[in-house]
């Protein structure tokens, strides 16, 4: 369990405050991270929703990407939501954009459509809960997995949650609901 560990929330752009609040509601400690030093000090990292191209540009400009990749290889637990999923992916078909490329997944951007197709739905997550509310905002989904990645949840036949050892990712936004199931699951990985 998380104990006294510090969960870093990448605070470059997007819904980072909501993740921080969710982690604190779980009784753990969360801290916004914006620099290499911040990332070095964190015991785990959440990459929030937002715009993946914006985060990618800042990760690249401020040379934060290398540090996250190194920490990830050393086993730091990382949890990405929505844009965070795209930033973690090894492949983003059709787009030339910066990503960390740490997780063996291929992610399709805006895969459920534009904002008018954004939706809420109830999800059944393998061995975790059969009733989690998922808020999907211009959401991506996982097209293909390989290596040690396993699928944890599908919606309408599309993979919307997966785990690869220390890496966890979801297409939706648990930080926008009151339900702490997914954050608690991430904390159990630490």
């Amino acid at each position: 369990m998380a104990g006294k560990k510090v969960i870093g929330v990448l605070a470059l752009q997007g819904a980072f405050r909501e993740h921080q609040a969710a982690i604190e509601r779980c009784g753990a400690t969360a801290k916004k991270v914006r620099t290499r030093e911040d990332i070095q000090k964190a015991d785990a990292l959440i990459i929030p929703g937002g715009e993946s191209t914006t985060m990618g540009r800042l990760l690249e400009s401020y040379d934060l990407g290398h540090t996250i990749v190194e920490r990830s290889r050393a086993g730091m637990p990382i949890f990405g939501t929505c844009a965070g999923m795209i930033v973690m992916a090894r492949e983003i078909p059709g787009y030339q954009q910066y990503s960390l490329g740490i997780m063996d997944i291929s992610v399709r951007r805006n895969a459920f459509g534009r904002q008018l197709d954004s939706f809420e739905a109830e999800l059944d997550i393998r061995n975790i809960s059969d009733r989690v509310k998922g808020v999907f905002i211009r959401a991506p989904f996982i097209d293909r997995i390989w290596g040690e990645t396993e699928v944890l949840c599908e919606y309408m036949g599309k993979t919307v949650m997966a785990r690869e050892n220390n890496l966890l990712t979801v297409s939706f936004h648990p930080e926008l609901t009151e339900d702490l199931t997914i954050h608690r699951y991430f904390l159990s990985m630490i």
Partner: protein
Amino acid sequence: MEEKGSFVVKDGLAQMLKGGVIMDVTTPEQAKIAEEAGACAVMALERVPADIRAMGGVARMADPTIILKIMDAVSIPVMAKCRIGHFVEARILESLGIDFIDESEVLTPADEKYHVNKHDFKVPFVCGARNLGEALRRIGEGAAMVRTKGEPGTGNVVEAVRHMRQIMDEMRWLKGLPKEELMTAAKDLQAPYELVLNVAARGCLPVVNFSAGGIATPADAALMMQLGADGNFVGSGIFKSGDPMARARAIVAATTYFDDPKVLAEVSRDLGEPMYGIDIKTLAPEEKMQDRGW
């Protein structure tokens, strides 16, 4: 089971824009520059506010062809403006599949009394406000996001600062009031009582609040973030400047690292000419866009 167009998903997109910069663009090429520079969304327009101001006449919703071309050019959310109260322009924008509608004082109002009933739409709306009462009236009508009005197209941040401080001051004031005074506060603010209760209890707006109207430099963007903005709209400030790409990147970085003067100093260097600004005092009352809407 699956629900689309709910307030949760409208608010959800606004939440994802936080900490970012939404840039006005008039061509697909500009939209690509904005995306490449790190904009979290773009506003598709026929003319930026500085040009609308210069041209005069009636400013209306952009030609759908321009909007669709911009939607095709980028992967980030695309917003567009409709005139205040012009619910038909709003329906047209919604049918194009736009991601967000700005019911904006930058365009000439179509209705001097009523704004659009935004609850009726599946697409989220953002509206301008100069004070808390105005922000809460727009939220009461269904806006999923608000922004300061500032004074668009001037490159002068003073009005955005005034409006942001006003909203923040009024929220601090509400938070300190005893319950029996809140109904009178609602009457004075001309705001819905339920929303006044919500702000008094939480001390912040129930939706995302950006700054807009005069932001022209990285320092302006960081100033607005320090005053409590959740993010920045930059209209004429980028594509009316000497080097749009460099300035756009710098404003994106300044919005993220708003409290780090070293980063701000670094990104403020060698940006070329900023847009030419206007002193608000030289504007005649009828030239002020912020007084449009109520």
